[in-house]
């Protein structure tokens, strides 16, 4: 590499070489850890494997047809969809309400905005263990508060009716900081003249929000919805820490199912896990394709 600049100075040919030399480190990493594993995931999904996970024989689409006919996998997909809905809708709407409230000219608004961004410092592990403490059926704060108003203890993580909601609640809180930061940046980029003009016309409060701020935030809201959806589909840590997919499989999402088949309980069923991973890939790519499709058409907005 150190000699590259000298050759580059001499000729166009050298500049082309230099360009490739600069791109090479990234391309090597991508080839080894993204390109090759993509191919190998598809390869593994078409092979049966021995007890140690080594591929043994070609089975074609068997893993996929098995998945399609499996009631468990159907439930996993439904749980994944439900979890996505339960995290994306409250997460985006909650952040929108917060940033709109912060648009009111009140004192300490900068401090408040920083406070709402705090959850962004939490990793999935730290947020999950803090909420695990809250959800503790005997000593947790949540059941303590419920008992104040005379309600019986709730099995937040141990009752299959509530577990998915509890994990979703943790996720919404954890993502709120990011969502608030993104939407605040969006509001800050709305041209001041537009807001001023609306104020002069007498718009304020709800009217200003509904007619000016929210429509102008459209592209940001759309971006945030897509990103949140993709993140929700990829969620793993909070499920692993809080419920391990249980109770009774009620929080087993697609990614968690991949983990269980491939890594948990010495399972090493890489064939089935890879077929599920391909399903995940297709779902996420579809979401991204929607994003690019829409942005392509509304590029002047963004």
């Amino acid at each position, binding site marked *: 590499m150190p000699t590259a600049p000298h050759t580059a100075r001499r000729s166009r040919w050298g500049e082309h070489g230099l360009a490739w030399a600069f791109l090479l480190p990234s391309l090597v990493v991508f080839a080894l*850890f993204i390109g090759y594993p993509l191919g190998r995931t598809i390869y593994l999904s078409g092979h049966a494997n021995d007890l140690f996970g080594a591929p043994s024989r070609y089975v074609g689409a068997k893993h996929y047809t098995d998945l399609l006919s499996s009631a468990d996998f159907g439930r996993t997909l439904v749980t994944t969809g439900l979890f996505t809905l339960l995290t994306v809708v409250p997460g985006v709407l909650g952040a929108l309400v917060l940033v709109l409230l912060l648009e009111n000219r009140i004192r300490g608004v900068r401090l408040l905005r920083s406070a709402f961004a705090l959850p962004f410092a939490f*990793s999935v592990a730290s947020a999950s263990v803090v909420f695990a403490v809250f959800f503790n059926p005997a000593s947790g704060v949540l059941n303590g508060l419920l008992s104040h108003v005379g309600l019986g203890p709730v099995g937040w993580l141990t009752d299959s009716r509530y577990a998915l909601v509890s994990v979703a609640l943790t996720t919404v809180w954890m993502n709120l900081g990011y969502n608030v930061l993104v939407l605040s940046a969006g509001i800050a980029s709305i041209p001041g003249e537009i807001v001023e003009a609306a104020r002069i016309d007498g718009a304020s409060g709800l009217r200003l929000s509904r007619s000016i701020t929210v429509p102008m935030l459209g592209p940001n809201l759309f971006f945030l919805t897509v990103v949140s959806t993709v993140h929700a589909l990829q969620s793993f840590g909070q499920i692993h820490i809080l419920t391990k997919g249980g109770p009774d499989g009620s929080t087993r999402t697609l990614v968690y199912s991949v983990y269980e088949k491939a890594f948990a309980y010495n399972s090493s069923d890489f064939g089935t896990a890879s077929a599920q991973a391909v399903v995940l890939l297709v779902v996420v790519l579809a979401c991204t394709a929607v994003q690019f499709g829409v942005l392509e058409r509304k590029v002047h907005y963004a």
Partner: protein
Amino acid sequence: MSTLATESEAEAQKADAPRPRPRLLAGRSPRDLLGRAAVHLLLAVALVTVAFPVYYAIAGAFMGPSELSSYPPALVPHSVTGRNFSGAVDTIPLFRQYANSAITATAITVAQLFTSILAAYAFVFLPLKARAVVFGVFLATLMVPWEAIIIPNYLTLSDWGFGNTYFGLVLPFLASGFGTFMLRQAFRQLPGELRDAARIDGAGHWRFLWRIVVPLNKPALAALSIYVFLSAWNQYFWPLIITRTADMQTLQIGLTSLRDSEMADPGLILAGVVLSLLPTLALVVFGQRFIVRGLTAGAVR
């Protein structure tokens, strides 16, 4: 409690209203004031909801076991104790795991910055025949969910003998399509005459890159560094499967084992959380304006 706080805040607002925002509050109708009270109330409720877990994690880390399991739960530590911190250090190799997280996150940040700077420079300042195709490859890497390719990556790194090593923790993350994309956006803002001027002065690409382009793009580089460091520090799935022993695990995995351990009590867990939060809280509080820039880079493509 929150209601009271809000009302008194609203009172205070009314009391010295003409001074801070004279134009806005002059001639307000009762309906407007009611609206403002509602805004304050909603914000206070939201603040309590969002900030409570942060507060409780910190307060709980200093509470004794009797307070943490008292019924109804204690919200303020009565006798501050440091026992949870020493307990956490005794239960897991916390300092070692702290170092593991710091080494891993720093290595990933430095490497991604380096590879992204080079690649972004190539896209902006160097002639390239297949530019569109190569850039397409970089963009495509952004769309592949890591969880979908985690099995082969685990197999590859284990085959290479990098299971349970720093190399195993770091290698897959040495380059990033996002970083390249973000820096390319930044580098493109530089006026083209800069390169011509540098050429006339006899500066080659290597010198132009490190003496001119990098120093002029410090804010974008800071944004990327913070973003990469935070994501690396907070990683969970990959360190969980690629490490096997407590002395190679990162802090995030240590937190979980703290929870699963026999002597787990909430105080130890919260003390671990507080320690793990120190660097990220500092970055979020002091680097917020950079973070916002990094987060939204993807939004304006």
